[in-house]
């Protein structure tokens, strides 16, 4: 709780600056710095945290700016009352845009950037050609500036100071919240985030709305500061590129990064304009951007943090838990104290088509509580598609999936996770920028429904102990070997305390000794009450683990029964090994 106090403390101290009686031009310089802090930080709330780089910040900023100018010039509203409206209009515009764009799964990365850039020009063209602007610009010189500070310039400074303080508090609060953890997970791997229970669509939309509202308010203040607004200077590529530059320079993964970048760039540009050398300023900004991308791709702030950590050594960690004898966490009673053996998942008539390809053609499977069910079959027989459909990654083309008596239908993956189903990926998909502990804590927080980040970490630690990864808690996923990454996948799946676990080839790529360890671990998972469905090619493990197997072939069920018996059947052997020609 020290950070918000520090932000407010600095803001209160800075509120006394106008009393110092400095020349008005300092107020303007400080105003511009604070203005850019609001814009860059608000941009970062969506784009830095989730990785959806928006080039549409000019549109949202402009929406607020033109809302205020219209209300002032046409309807003669008092200035301060226009600001909440400016924020609301920008937020509505952003939400409407996001509601469409975030539904399209593949509009990510560059495509999202371009799309938001295009929105900027569309909104700009509409504003310029309608009475909102009329192509001539809007003059606000007749509008009285409210007496917030002793002088006009100090009024703008104080308003921007208030906006910047609010923005930084919001940006900080998000980073320490469950919401922020979800946004960072979206940044690293959106599909995996959804699968562990992060409501990605709603989170992205909320982040965009907050980001737009703050930019809109900044636009409202800036309208009166400029006192003459034109489309050509507002709906440009310059605003979004400047905020991107500031945030990337400062560091996009930290709430304070964009603010540092904003102060640096504004100060730099100002020093060049003050020295009557705007052209050199432009060139210098370009050179700094290039140098920052090449030598500090993470930004100034992470660089400083690393340097700081070298100076002040990390606090000593408690001795690692003995990983050789991991203790299983106390099992949670399976939700309804139902008898083992009743049907927990019933899939009927499941179809999945990808354009022309028939991946699943009428699959019916029943999974009983407490059992370990193996899904086997040749490559391309539909096993992984089955897992992907049940976990909600793909919507089924047809068919019913009923989990604990509730039809899942085409529910979003995060709701399926919340219902009590977890999965692992064949190729581990950890959140690369989070520690091993945080990876697991995210699952506990979202799928597991633990609201407090601290409790989620405690829960996550228990699962790391369970999977023998406790001594790797602070490591980054990149530092783990394949075996450990597979176990991290398991720990992440288990941390949401699922009643049904879907394992997609956890053993693939492991050495025989590692396989034995994993088999024992999977048994222990079942022993504490979870039901397990696993896709596997390692026959030794299938025979050792499964109570029952179902065999997939060309998207249909070929056989069902005890592993040893099913594998003897002629049609199963043919499916696996091909027709004997002899």
């Amino acid at each position: 709780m020290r950070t918000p106090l520090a932000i407010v403390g600095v803001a209160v101290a800075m509120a006394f600056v106008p009393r110092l009686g400095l020349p008005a031009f300092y107020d303007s310089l400080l105003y511009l710095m604070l203005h850019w802090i609001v814009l860059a930080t608000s941009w970062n709330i969506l784009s830095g945290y989730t990785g959806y780089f928006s080039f549409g910040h000019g549109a949202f900023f402009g929406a607020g700016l033109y809302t205020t100018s219209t209300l002032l010039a046409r309807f003669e509203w008092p200035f301060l009352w226009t600001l909440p409206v400016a924020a609301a209009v920008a937020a509505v515009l952003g939400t409407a845009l996001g509601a469409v764009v975030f539904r399209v799964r593949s509009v990510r990365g560059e495509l999202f950037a371009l799309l938001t850039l295009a929105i900027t020009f569309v909104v700009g063209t509409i504003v310029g050609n309608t009475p909102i602007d009329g192509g001539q610009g809007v003059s606000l010189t007749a509008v009285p500036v409210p007496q917030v500070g002793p002088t006009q310039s100090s009024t703008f400074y104080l308003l921007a100071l208030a906006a910047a303080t609010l923005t930084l508090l919001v940006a900080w609060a998000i980073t320490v919240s469950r919401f922020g953890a979800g946004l960072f997970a979206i940044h690293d791997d959106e599909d995996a985030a959804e699968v562990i229970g992060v409501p990605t669509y709603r989170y992205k939309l909320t982040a965009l709305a907050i980001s737009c509202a703050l930019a809109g308010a900044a636009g409202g203040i800036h309208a009166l500061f400029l006192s003459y607004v034109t489309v050509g200077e507002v709906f440009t590529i310059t605003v979004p590129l400047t905020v991107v530059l500031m945030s990337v320079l400062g560091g996009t993964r930290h709430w304070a990064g964009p603010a540092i970048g904003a102060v640096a760039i504004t100060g730099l540009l100002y020093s060049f304009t003050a020295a009557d050398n705007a052209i050199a300023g432009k060139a210098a900004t370009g050179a700094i951007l290039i140098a920052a991308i090449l030598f500090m791709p993470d930004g100034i702030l992470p660089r400083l943090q690393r340097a700081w950590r070298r100076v002040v050594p990390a606090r000593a960690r408690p001795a690692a838990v003995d990983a050789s004898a991991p203790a299983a966490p106390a099992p949670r009673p399976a939700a309804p104290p139902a008898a083992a053996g009743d049907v927990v998942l019933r899939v009927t008539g499941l179809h999945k088509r990808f354009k022309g390809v028939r991946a699943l053609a009428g699959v019916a499977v029943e999974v009983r509580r407490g059992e370990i069910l193996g899904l086997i079959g040749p490559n391309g027989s539909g096993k992984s598609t089955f897992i992907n459909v049940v976990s909600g990654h793909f919507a089924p083309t047809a068919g019913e999936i009923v989990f604990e008596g509730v039809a899942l239908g085409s529910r979003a993956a995060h709701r399926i996770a919340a219902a009590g189903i977890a999965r692992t990926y064949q190729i581990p998909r950890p959140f690369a920028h989070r520690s091993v502990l945080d990876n697991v804590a995210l699952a506990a927080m979202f799928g597991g429904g633990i609201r407090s980040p601290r409790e989620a970490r405690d829960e996550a630690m228990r699962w790391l102990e369970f999977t023998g990864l406790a001594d790797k808690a602070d490591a980054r996923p990149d530092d783990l070997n394949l075996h450990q990454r597979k176990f991290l996948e398991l720990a992440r799946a288990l941390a949401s305390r699922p009643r049904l676990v879907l394992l997609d080839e956890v053993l693939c790529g492991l050495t025989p000794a590692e396989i034995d360890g994993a088999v024992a671990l999977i048994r222990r998972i079942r022993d504490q009450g979870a039901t397990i469905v696993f896709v596997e090619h390692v026959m030794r493990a299938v025979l050792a683990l499964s109570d029952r197997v179902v065999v997939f072939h060309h998207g249909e069920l070929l056989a069902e029964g005890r592993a040893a018996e099913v594998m003897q059947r002629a049609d199963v052997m043919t499916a696996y090994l091909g027709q004997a020609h002899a």
Partner: protein
Amino acid sequence: MSAFTLPSASLLAQSVLSGIFVGALYGLLGLGLSLSWGLLRLINLAHFAFAFLAAYLCFQLASLGVDPLLTLVGIVPAFFALGAGLHWLMARFAITPFNSLLLTFGLMGIVEAAIQSIWTADFRKLESVYASQKFKVGALFVPVPELITLVLAVAFAAGVWAVLRFSDLGKALRAAAEDGPIAAAFGVHRQRNALLLAGTCSALVSIAGVCLALTFTLAPSQMYAWIGVVFAAVMLGGLGSAIGPLVAGTLIGVSEAVTMAVTAPSWAPIVSFTLLIVVLVLRPGKAA
């Protein structure tokens, strides 16, 4: 709201023609961008700065009495080297597609500042023998500089398409774009090919720059005005495609010109950007 006026048939035909001409320039400007984005996974915003730099060089040489088309002899190799050098730098630091966008934006600022300090921020118009030449086909005027642009745009789009489609080099480039390490394992010399392609992209955009000098009035800040619409042409045409940007550019150019004739010129941007948004939302797979 501007009133809708229905233009006469000959005015409409003239608009369509001018749309085709400006669309050809969109296509030529977008050709290098599309190849670089699609095949090298680098989004080179500096292309716009390179086009303007080439345009200003052409303007400078022409004002010394050199035929504008003859300046290509010097400009094309110079920009080939520039593009290859830039690519070498970005490859050396293993730049991600997104960071390439930011880095080349920085470069764009530097080039803009350089142009501004040499040629000032005032508008410049190249005076040449071609400038005022035009001939009449039926009721339509055909200006020669625009016609040169169209011919060059079609020729280079077709040429690049043929190279990519049929030559070993083209196949190697497309293979490397799909899976670099695998292509390398099959004996594709990735670094050399990538340098060659980056140089070619930059050379192509310098040709577009010469066409720009022939047909438009130049000002350094104008380089930003082209980004949106050329991006739209590239995305619509499909990344890595040689013919796509030209077709999409022409489509955009014509629809803009007709919009201008029917309503007011200030409504023109809405056409290209609405097209871009629709394509991105409805068919994102095509663009990526």
